[in-house]
């Protein structure tokens, strides 16, 4: 087996042998977001099997990997019990680290990044902070302007973040971990 193959790298990282997939398509049939995907789960599995470098690039630049909501339906119903969500995680991390995130997925990534930012600085998620950070980075300044006041009035949003005490200890976990990609 060619060690340059994406399928080989997938196997190294996730211990999943994509050759076990026999393309029944049950993953796609049950996928809640399949309709929105450019490459549907079973197609990604097929492309991984091909070991084709062009396919690799196409997968890493696809929108699909970001549209996967990790609902685990595919994994639960797969007759070969292939953990596709785990493969998706692997592909997302690579796509992100290599700066190949699909244009339409930037919001998703921005949201995740903002999320991790607030966690890094507070130890916990600060929803207000997250939304502000996300708005700034995504440019979607007016999204959900109507939501925040109501949340606030119902006691669901606090202005000030909760901070954990041992932020220093937490920072060790973040040290050296990529949160920023090449893009």
């Amino acid at each position: 087996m060619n060690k340059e193959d994406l399928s080989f790298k997938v196997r190294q990282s996730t211990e999943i042998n994509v050759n076990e997939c026999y393309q029944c398509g049950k993953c796609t049939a049950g996928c809640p977001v399949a309709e929105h995907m450019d490459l549907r789960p079973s197609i990604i599995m097929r492309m991984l099997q091909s070991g084709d470098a062009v396919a690799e690039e196409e997968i890493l630049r696809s929108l699909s990997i970001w549209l996967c909501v990790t609902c685990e339906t595919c994994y639960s119903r797969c007759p070969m019990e292939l953990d596709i969500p785990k493969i998706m995680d692997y592909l997302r991390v690579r796509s992100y680290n290599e700066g190949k995130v699909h244009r339409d997925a930037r919001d998703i990534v921005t949201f995740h990044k903002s999320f991790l930012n607030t966690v890094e600085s507070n130890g916990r998620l600060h929803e207000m902070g997250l939304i502000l950070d996300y708005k700034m980075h995504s440019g979607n300044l007016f999204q959900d302007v109507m939501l925040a006041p109501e949340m606030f009035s119902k006691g669901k949003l606090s202005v000030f973040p909760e901070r954990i005490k041992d932020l220093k200890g937490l920072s060790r976990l973040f040290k050296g971990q990529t949160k920023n990609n090449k893009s």
Partner: protein
Amino acid sequence: MSKIGVFICHCGENISATVDVVRVAEAAGKLEGVEFSTDYKYMCSDPGQTLIKQMIKEKGLTGVIVAACSPRMHEPTFRKACSSAGLNPYMCEMSNLREHCSWVHDKSEATTQKAIDLVRTLVGKVKYNKPLYSIKVPVTKTALVIGGGIAGIQSSLDIANAGHQVVLVEKDPSIGGHMSQLSETFPTLDCSQCILTPRMVEVAQHPNIKLLTYAELEKLEGFIGNFKATIRKKAKSIDEDLCTGCGTCITKCPTKKIPSEFNTGLGKRTAIYVPFPQAVPNKPVIDKENCLYYKNGKCKICEKVCPTGAIRFDQEDELVELEVGAVVVATGFDVMEPSKFSEYGYGKYKDVITGLQFERLASASGPTLGEIRRPSDGKIPEKIVFVACAGSRDPSKGKPYCSKICCMYTAKHAMLYQHKVHHGESTIFYMDIRSAGKNYEEFVRRAIVEDDVKYIRGRVSKVYEENGKLIVKGVDTLLNAKPVEIQADMVVLATAAVANSGAEELAQKMHISYDAYNFFSEAHPKLKPVETNTAGIFLAGACQAPKDIPETVSQASGAAAKVAILFSQDELSREPVVAVVNRSAPPLYSTCVGCFMCATACPYQAIGEELITNRKGEVIKRVAKVNPGLCQGCGTCVAFCRSKSIDIDGYSNEQMYSEVMALLND
């Protein structure tokens, strides 16, 4: 003292071109125990064999070594020659100078030296060879056939027509098996019952066949040619001799709502019942679990209405012992319970049914008289979805294997539906279409091209009900994996064919092996497809692996032929290479201490126990004993025995020890 003759063959030049055969013969002649040695151009030729025979007589040889080709080639030839010269054939062995020496080495001193070593090695063995005599086993010429489906029926008829006695045992009240439940059969669409029922009647009327229905194998002992089978005849609660099969009892039975097994739960039956109208024998049995009288002691209406007084409430199970020479196992298969696949909604939605249930709907003798109607409301479905591989090729929740018959019967189902409901739409979700077989591919093409059955390549992920429709969520993997949603009226699951629930237990009773899926194992996947590892027990039909009717019938006839071959002789003659547990004079009787590790290890259950008794009949020792009828001569037991009490003729401890010593001591 041995007088061994060594005959070195040139094999034309095959051996002599690389091995100095003259020197080998010379060296052999000097070995202790060798009386005579020579070399000759072609030992297997007539003059060559004559030379051996002549020297046996002339020199009074007690052993012969032919150093020539592989024993796998000519051992029988030379043993026969020795035998005709009055030397026990098992005193003759072959040293392999061709395949193991001259053909794999270049001509050299080392090659000749190896040839000498090989001959010397065998001289070491032959010194300890002893005369062996083939084992004779008598044969009881009655066959037991277990299972009365098409496989058992075919085997029984073939054996009976060859002139032998057959006892056919069927666990249900009627023979016929799954084939009697089918509507039409692929690829010809002839009616299943129309071709099957004449065979069923033939079985019932055949003078050589004894039919035991509602009966099961309880125990099987013995070995090839000499089995003793115990059959449990379950109480039918009727006197079969008196019952005329008029059916009055059935019409009057008040318990009418029992789900019919024959109709896969889609129809009902009474407590005293005949499973289906064409049943053989066509006499009812009482289902004790559901009969009012057996449940609460009141009713007995059948007894009152029976014109011949044939009802017997006090009847009990009966054990019958049979002496049989061979067994054909034809216990068939079952369909998988698909409720594990809760995403398909079987068991939750009435209109999600199995393929076998669809057969009953499509059958003219079925609950709807052959009209395709939904179990839920009796409406004719306008759209049917067939799901292939429901349980097959699914290591996660089903079986990893392909059930082999589903592709064909699903095509047939869709076709039958289209023939019966002209405006209907049928869709088949499939992964691959496996239609290898005579006229099979043509059949599938016809379904697609002529009957407009829609084939979509992809699996179904979920079936759920909404507004009286079954929503089927599938995918078309040939259209860039496009999700497909169909609103169907009925969903038919092509459920996997699996081993019968009692298969494991039955195999253990018969001491035959079975695979990880509880299908019975054939002795060799290619060359012994109907034999089992136990000599005298043969397999027919889907109890060995899923198969369709033509294949089942072929195998059933094959098994019958094997039985007929076995029954063609009065005695069996077997190779005497078998294990023996030693016996000696009192007080020891045998060095065996009866730990029976040999028996646990034996792949053939050939090792039993013997109780050694004194004159008063008291047991003084319990030791192992090999049944030479069952032993196949692997010798695994010999290597286990700590006290070296068990040995194997032909490869005895002394022979093998001496062979090793001779090899290493030049």
